[in-house]
């Protein structure tokens, strides 16, 4: 199975290290408390440089989704069809995510989703979001 991963220099960054350890963390402002994604050196609300990392609730809603039927890379031929999602997290941030291969999910825009971190190896894991009823299944 072909998997797409960020290059190693990115996997040393906190977002990816927290995922590899099993949890989704969000880049948060230590002054106003707001979360932002993708990570940034400054808070986009209060412009504080004092930012850190907090565990995410993992709760979100489905903003949109798309089903890739056509493989845009030869190494993805064994992956299609796969589901890409846009998820709005309770913390007020948007994330790109998906549905893990082999998991069936009937999707409807606006439905509640829960994060499930899937580890691929010691360094690399991804935050998928599943409909709430199925989120706890492993």
């Amino acid at each position, binding site marked *: 199975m*072909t*998997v*797409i*991963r*960020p*290059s190693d*220099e*990115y996997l040393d960054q906190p977002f990816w290290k927290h995922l590899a350890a099993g949890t989704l963390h969000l880049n948060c402002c230590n002054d106003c408390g707001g979360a932002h*994604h*993708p990570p940034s050196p400054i808070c*986009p609300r209060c412009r504080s440089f004092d930012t850190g990392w907090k565990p995410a609730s993992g709760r979100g809603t489905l*903003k*949109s*989704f*798309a*089903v*890739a*039927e*056509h493989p*845009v*890379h030869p*190494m*993805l031929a064994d*992956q299609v*069809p*796969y589901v*890409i*999602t*846009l998820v709005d997290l309770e913390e007020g941030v*948007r*994330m*790109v*995510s*998906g549905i893990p291969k082999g998991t069936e999910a009937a999707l*409807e*825009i*606006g439905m509640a989703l829960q994060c499930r971190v899937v580890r691929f190896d010691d360094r690399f894991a*991804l935050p998928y979001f599943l409909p709430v009823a199925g989120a706890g299944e492993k």
Partner: protein
Amino acid sequence: MKTSIVGIGQTEFSKDSGRSELKLALEAILAAVADAGLEVDDIDGLVRYTWDHTTEAAIVNALGLDHLNYYGETEFGGVNCCGAVAQASAAIEAGLASCIVFYRTLNARSGVRYGRGERVLAEEDGWLVSRQPEPPGDIYSAPFGLLVPGQHHALYAQAYKGHYGLTDDRFTEMLGSVAVTQRAYANRNPRALLKDRTLDMDDYRAGRVITAPLRVYDYCLETDGAMALVIVSRERARGLSAKAVDVLSAGQYIFPGSVPMYLYAEKAYSLVPEAAGEELFGKAGLSPSDIDVAMLYDATSMMVPLALEDFGFIGRGEAQDFLTSGGNGPGGRLPVNTHGGLLSEGYFHGLNTIAEGVRQLRGESHNQVEAETAFVTLRGASSMILGRA
């Protein structure tokens, strides 16, 4: 703006140009200057996209331009088609240059393809690796297989379909109306890549799904070629033989999460804040009802309903009725993409979108409408209003 577009030049559109991007650019620039009734040595400014592989220096060296006083670049590619015209106009109004060529050259089918993941991924030890921080194909989206612009468009399309609660049938009819109408325009346009291939609604429905909910006919055509536009002051334009078209207003618009791919924009079913349209129309002293013909950057068919609603040509949620009743077609309330658009003429990163607006106002379109004004936009990121001189 107090500028005019006075020249259009281009090569043929093809799937394999058989020559370098530099050579294509030079052919287009010479053709544009000739169309304007100017000399190559009149060029004293150049603008281009940062994504263009052919630099201003390469053009200056190749043409021996010995008094290039201004060169400017706008970020990305087609996103800034009207932004490049705005920057050229600003430079002319500021006295930095007097005759600016905006060029775009690319072998986008025979060379690097925007519709392919190879553009943004490397292969290492059996893994596919992303090492770029910005969409498309960035480290936060590539691992989920979101790699090319056309997949982002499917996300906008699904968000719109869900927001307005459109049935599969209704949604298919709406986008099919865009693809079928524009193909009919292209069938009358000798420049169009798909001039000889007809498309009806049955063909459209039978088209294979690329990324649901979008089908193959919802997508633009990767294209080889080059185009160039010549921009001068309105005053100078009046003394030229070319049929000038005036830039009434032009601008760029960016907001957090909007560029380049709107992944983090609040509404995925509406891409343009109202302020963008108000500012653009305000500067031209016009309103959407004053526009006679619209060129809406259609990297996918979904861009047409979004732009029609976002700029107030129709009300929110009205695109399905407008498009399925032929509002965008010949004799419709607002003919759209009368060259066939990026879907059927060719994907030329906005320059052919602008050029068709110019041709309509010159009276040179192959699908001519009675037009005094033309509107051009790339989903609000850059937009322009053109007027007959």
